[in-house]
């Protein structure tokens, strides 16, 4: 059952097509000289400076670095939740700084899935409804919605919990729901901030394995922030951030 995956867009299926797609969107994310500072009392506190990097379609990137290094900030910028104070950012060939709110929300609906460090489930909604919410915004039909959610509940082993509210779940279970929600809309890219931060190691490994599978079999681009060297090994690239700059950019075989 575990491998009964939700099928992504047909164009991404099969090796040959994946390759061709891979060639077309060579640069899914292109950052040039990204800077981010917070001005407090007129003094600029730089969180990021001169971050320049490309992330291609189908990559599985882990961002690492010490606490306060700016990892979450960088991920937020990638997710267009925050704007850089300087530099240019192109997402799928489009300049993000010129995007209007409506366009950005279209991107959220169709391409980007978020997994938050603090889960961020909606407390007033049940597990089922939390997973359903992005599908509703995407205007996906009722039966399609039902089958997708059933799949995800099944895959994450939380069928029994579907009518519970977030505060009735353990931290790890909430994180699972958060991931299921991110996957529900079948995004082309997943941005995950310490997705396994609250999970016990066995569970963490399962999630990582799942990410790897999504990345390999469905070509979903994954960018995760993690503190764990072991988790980072599931991906194919590690960006080390320290003092606001990319210190190391290592490819994993």
């Amino acid at each position, binding site marked *: 059952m575990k491998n009964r995956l939700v099928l992504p867009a047909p164009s991404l299926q099969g090796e040959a097509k994946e390759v061709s797609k891979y060639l077309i969107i060579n640069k899914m994310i292109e950052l040039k000289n990204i800077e981010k500072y917070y001005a407090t009392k007129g003094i600029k506190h730089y969180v990021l400076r001169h971050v320049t990097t490309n992330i291609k379609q189908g990559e599985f990137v882990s961002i690492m670095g010490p606490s306060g290094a700016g990892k979450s900030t960088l991920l*937020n910028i990638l997710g267009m*939740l925050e704007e850089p104070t300087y530099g240019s950012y192109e997402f799928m060939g489009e300049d993000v700084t010129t995007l209007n709110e409506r366009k950005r929300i279209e991107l*959220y609906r169709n391409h980007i899935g978020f997994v938050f460090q603090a889960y961020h489930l909606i*407390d007033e909604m049940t597990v089922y409804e939390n997973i359903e919410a992005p599908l509703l*915004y995407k205007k996906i039909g009722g039966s399609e919605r039902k089958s997708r959610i059933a799949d995800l509940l099944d895959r994450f082993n939380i069928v029994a919990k579907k009518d519970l509210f977030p505060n009735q779940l353990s931290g790890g279970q909430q994180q699972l729901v958060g991931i299921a929600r991110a996957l529900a*809309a079948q995004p082309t890219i997943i941005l995950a901030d310490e997705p396994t931060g609250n999970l016990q190691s066995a569970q963490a490994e399962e999630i990582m394995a799942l990410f790897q599978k999504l990345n390999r079999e469905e070509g979903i681009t994954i960018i995760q922030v993690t503190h764990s060297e072991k988790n980072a090994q599931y991906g194919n690239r590690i960006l080390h951030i320290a003092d606001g700059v990319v210190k190391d950019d290592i490819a994993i075989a």
Partner: protein
Amino acid sequence: MFKLNLKIALRNLWRNRIITSINVGGLAIALAAFILVVMYFTYETSFDKTNPNYNNIYVVGRIYPDFKTNYTSPPFAKAIKQNFPEVENAGITKRGFFEFTMKNGKNTLFAKNFMQADYNAAKILDLKPTGGLEKPAGEVDRLSYLSEESMKVLYPNKTDNKPEMVGMGSSNSGITSKINGSIINNLHSNITFDGISIGNEIGQGENYGMNNYTTYIQVKPGTDVANLEQKITKLYRNELLKGETDQKTIEEIKSISTFLDPLSNQHLKPKAGNDAPYKILIALSVLGILILVIACINFTNLSIAQATKRAKEVGIKKVMGAYRFQLTTQFLAEIFIQCLFATVLALIVAELVLPYFNNLFQINLSVWHIDNDLIWQLPLILCLITLIAGIYPAIVLSGFKPALVLKGNFSTSKQSYWLRNSLLVFQFSIAVIFIIGLFIINSQLKYMRSEDLGFTANQVVYIKNQTLFNNPVKFGSLNFESVRDKILKIPGIKSATVATDVPDGAENGTNGYTFEGVQSSLDFVDVDFDYFETLDIKLKQGRFFSQSFSTDTANSAVINESAVAKYGMKNPVGKTIKGCNIDYKIVGVIKDFKAQGFESAVQPTIYTIKNPCGNYKTQIMLKIEENKMADALATLKAQWPQINPKDGQDFRYEFLDELYGKLFKKQEQLQSVFFAAALLTIFIAILGLFAFAKYITNGRIKEIAVRKILGASDIQIFKLINRSFLVMVLLANVISWPVAYILTKKWLETFAYRIDLPVLPFMSSALITILLTVITVSIQAKKAVKANPVDALKYE
């Protein structure tokens, strides 16, 4: 999406059901009050609106240098119609100045206002006799109608609309009169009557001096009214100037002008008259709006209290692809559900309260009738309160940037701190103003009830009477002596008198009097012996009227202190005051007494027994011993036809203290309204505070737990939670004191006799609000304090 949102909204409301019901209940009550105000407002502003020519009808009045009046003379209307083509129609009416007694067998009707109108006026005013308005046949023929209610009194079983012959006066008078049918007496009109008599022309032969009529004109649509007004003034002066040669009179006439007052003004703010009803209406509307706003603020404040939580929801939904307007509509829909529910509840509450409201304002409103304006007003109100209550979440909450709210320790408290606190302060300020107002109105009313009036109305019975007792005999009046003798034979009746006026607040007549060469106008009251004794009025100098002085019925006068002061008299007793071509000898000075209530100062007044220039002496007053009151009244009723044969067999009386008490009615109305308003605002504000405090303490449970672990005592925590609320309530008091001071001072100034502005209400309002706040907040704080810190910190 909408279905899910709705489901979640309902679930949310249910989960916070106590707070929800508090909010919805508070709003429902406020809305009920507002609905009543709206209904009252609609009612008060739509008098005569059913008249098809509502917007083109004007009353023609006259302006003298020192007063304005609606009373005009019969020839004026005719002249206006003849001279100005833009005046489509002009007619006159005349109020009934006498109370008619009408009889049909055993049924008796006392028609207080049997009006007269010419056919034109009847047409302008859209009078509707059953079967339609008919034109009287000849020059002098009249068509008389009784209002449907009056007709019911005389002919309870009448079903046809045939003319009837009714007896006039007592049953042995032998006078009958023809009533042509019944007529609708629209109580929602400025023209009301018990009966009306319509002629082709009324007031024939009366000249420009007979200003006893009201003139109505109907102009053609689009008429330049200001211009017409000027033309009518010119016409009026010309008419008066005809044949006038006396230079002084000509000058006087030139100072008179006329005005046109729209029919729509007549009920609330007639140009000739006072606009107190209008002011009261406006004040009432302001009260209603304030109460509603205060209830809406509860919603906003609760939204603010929940904001941190809701902001997270906003952030998440946005990154999942929700547009801002979707969130806005979601929030509005949530508020709308509650408002809708509140509206339904409000209608029920309004329906329950309506009888009291109708009773208080002496009207007859009802919620459930087809042409009720509420049908379109209510949805409007509903949308409005949804907007007011939902504006904060709809605009501010929905605008949160996801990055801000989703990042770690986001808290909206800083941004909304000012807004939420100012809203609370505003609510409490209004409540404080109402409390102070209520206290001050109460003190003034208490003062009015307990203050020495200068006369005693207790145990004084006022008898309605139609016989004239003027002396010397005038228009076939009788001498009161024989009536008095017969009355005094009844055990328990201590004294009896008759006068032109009773001290019931009504204004007296005025006339010019000269004292030592100084001419001035004085109020006059024509009395009989025992007038002062019956009313227990205090003597200051000299003596009262007495039968042992034969001159008293000829030229003796008693004046009051104010009259002495007005002329600056020294030792007035024995001196002469001249009026109505009589040299009156002042025999006594009485202390002032408040015949006109507390609003106007006691007028300088002269009391005489003989006054050829005076009014009809018809008002009989008796002083009766308390314990023999019932017997005496029964005997009077039985013997009345023998005692006072000309009045007929209908003995009707009122107690003077009740009559005088009616003067306080307006103030008592105000007191009731204020009482309700103050209670409501406090109640609603406290409800809001309760819910608000609940949220705040819930939000601080973790903080409280940590403090407790760090060793804070319960008292310290109570203080901590109460402090910020106390500061706000104190601030509210400080803000509202000057406002309340100015408002109540203004109100007190409408009384000639009033209390000094007391300090106590200001102190009490502070005390009350502080106490209520501490209690309300502490109830919530108690839960947080009692909670086990471990529970609160478990999910850290």
